[in-house]
């Protein structure tokens, strides 16, 4: 079943949880690429997907977040992009098909990690090629949809979206709003949603199936971004895939502060904020997803939440928006940027 078909059947879908966090728990070493396990330790990846399906996920994301040639270069594996994506999609497909209910396989596509020209060296054309190789692999392995996530730069989102259209996969695109309520490149949630759902860069018959926010800082920050997206694009299908709280460094260990109860509250708030696809990102374990599944199934629609309600349930904003960038303090001696 395609994502669009499942969305037509049900008001709200549950996506999955963290890949990195859960793979570290299975023994992945810091600095290593999780993606290599698609070939080296496929049973661990099956186990991860199975744990999400068992917790009630309707959508599972492939272990291919960093499987683009640019990112794989860090691990001298740039030649394996197609292969890693195909293997990753096959593993998720296998688990989804055995689930006994419709489970969508979403092919995860993360950023290259490179800066686009003129800030960096990557050109739009090169980026489209890099993403297309990844998505060909995902498609060949049986992915239903390209799931472009954790984006921050507009050029990179457009390149990934173009690649999905060229390869012929429906696509979802979510950004990470982690810097004063915007992406680190300075894009506001409302601007992002409108660019994707009604902007001139994309033809109307080629728009994403859904847009939204993922990762970022805490659940509260992401919920606030969702509110501004649903306000800007009330007809869009919105994805909310926040971290399970914020990372807390204790001694040499990092853990996420969000409990399953917090993530259950978060899921309810996300629905009230207008999101139709809800999941978790970093720190989200199967026990969090189970609590979210129960919350979604028992949910009674409420009003759009206020910031106060969000903060009361999910904690203070980790990196609150400022309007300072819209109204910068006056400066003397300012010159035009070259």
């Amino acid at each position, binding site marked *: 079943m395609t994502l669009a078909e499942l969305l037509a059947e049900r008001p709200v879908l549950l996506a999955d949880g963290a890949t990195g966090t859960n793979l570290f728990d299975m023994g992945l070493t810091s*600095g290593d690429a999780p993606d290599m396990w698609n070939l080296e330790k496929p049973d661990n990846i099956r186990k991860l997907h199975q744990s999400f399906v068992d917790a009630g996920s309707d959508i599972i994301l492939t272990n291919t977040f960093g499987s683009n040639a640019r990112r794989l270069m860090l691990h001298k594996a740039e030649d394996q992009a197609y292969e890693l994506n195909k293997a990753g999609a096959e593993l998720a497909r296998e688990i989804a098909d055995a689930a006994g209910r419709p489970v969508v396989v979403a092919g995860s596509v993360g950023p290259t990690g490179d800066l686009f020209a003129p800030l960096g060296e990557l050109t739009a054309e090169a980026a489209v090629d890099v993403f297309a190789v990844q998505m060909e692999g995902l498609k060949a392995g049986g992915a239903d949809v390209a799931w472009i996530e954790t984006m921050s730069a507009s050029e990179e989102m457009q390149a990934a979206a173009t690649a999905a259209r060229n390869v012929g996969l429906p696509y979802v695109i979510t950004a990470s709003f982690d810097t004063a309520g915007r992406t680190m490149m300075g894009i506001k949630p409302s601007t992002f949603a409108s660019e994707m759902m009604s902007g001139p860069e994309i033809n109307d018959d080629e728009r994403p199936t859904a847009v939204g926010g993922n990762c970022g800082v805490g659940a509260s920050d992401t919920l606030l971004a969702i509110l501004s997206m649903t306000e800007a694009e009330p007809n869009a299908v919105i994805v909310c895939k926040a971290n399970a709280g914020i990372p807390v460094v204790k001694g040499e260990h990092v853990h996420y502060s969000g409990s399953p109860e917090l993530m259950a509250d978060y899921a309810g708030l996300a629905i009230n904020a207008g999101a139709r696809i809800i999941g978790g990102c970093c720190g989200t374990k199967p026990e969090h997803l189970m609590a979210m599944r129960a919350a979604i199934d028992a949910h009674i629609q409420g009003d759009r939440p206020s910031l106060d309600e969000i903060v009361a349930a999910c904690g203070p904003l980790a990196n609150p928006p400022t309007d300072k960038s819209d109204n910068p303090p006056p400066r003397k001696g300012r010159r035009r940027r070259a």
Partner: protein
Amino acid sequence: MADDEDDIILSELNNEELVEQMHQDLYDGLKDEIEEGVNILLGRDWAPYKVLTEALVEGMRIVGIDFRDGILFVPEVLLAANAMKAGMAILRPLLIESGAPRQGRIVTGTVKGDIHDIGKNLVGMMMEGAGFEVIDLGINTDVDQFLAAIDEHKPDMLGMSALLTTTMPYMKVVIDTLKEKGIRDDMIVLVGGAPLNEDFAMAVGADAYCRDAAVAVETAKELMARKHNKLASA
């Protein structure tokens, strides 16, 4: 913006105005103007170290504050960092020549899996400015690269940077390997990066956590002095 604002002639400004204008130009990421400003100050017999700290580092400090406050975002910060780098390229050979006292040698790198380097580069520039010799291994540095550089350069210090919660534990991998090889105590190990804290630094076996570049320089100086005292009294 009015055109006349673009027609500032740097060489006609007095020192104080010029330094202030350089802070503005750094903020706006104007590389050519920063190079020009550095050369003018040097021509007015400013010591390279004074140019570095008062014009460039202070300018970057302002950029850092506005980034923290959500006024600037990454593209602006990167342009500013590039402008600073251009100014630093002029100053570097002069700083070495002017014999800012050689404080010691440090090997730096961002750890494996991590490509963030703005902070590490800033630390490197400040260290050079303060008279340290910096051998920078760049980003995505694995333990073998660190070991090879230590073997080749016999540094007094090792400085590791990580900006991701997923890569910071790699610092422990490096330090554990140094211990295994019995060379951990041959050098001072400094660590830094936004997600770290003091506690983490101690838990992974580093000598110190450095909150920012200024702290890194102070800590490096202090630990080097302690090391020398220890050697002298031994």
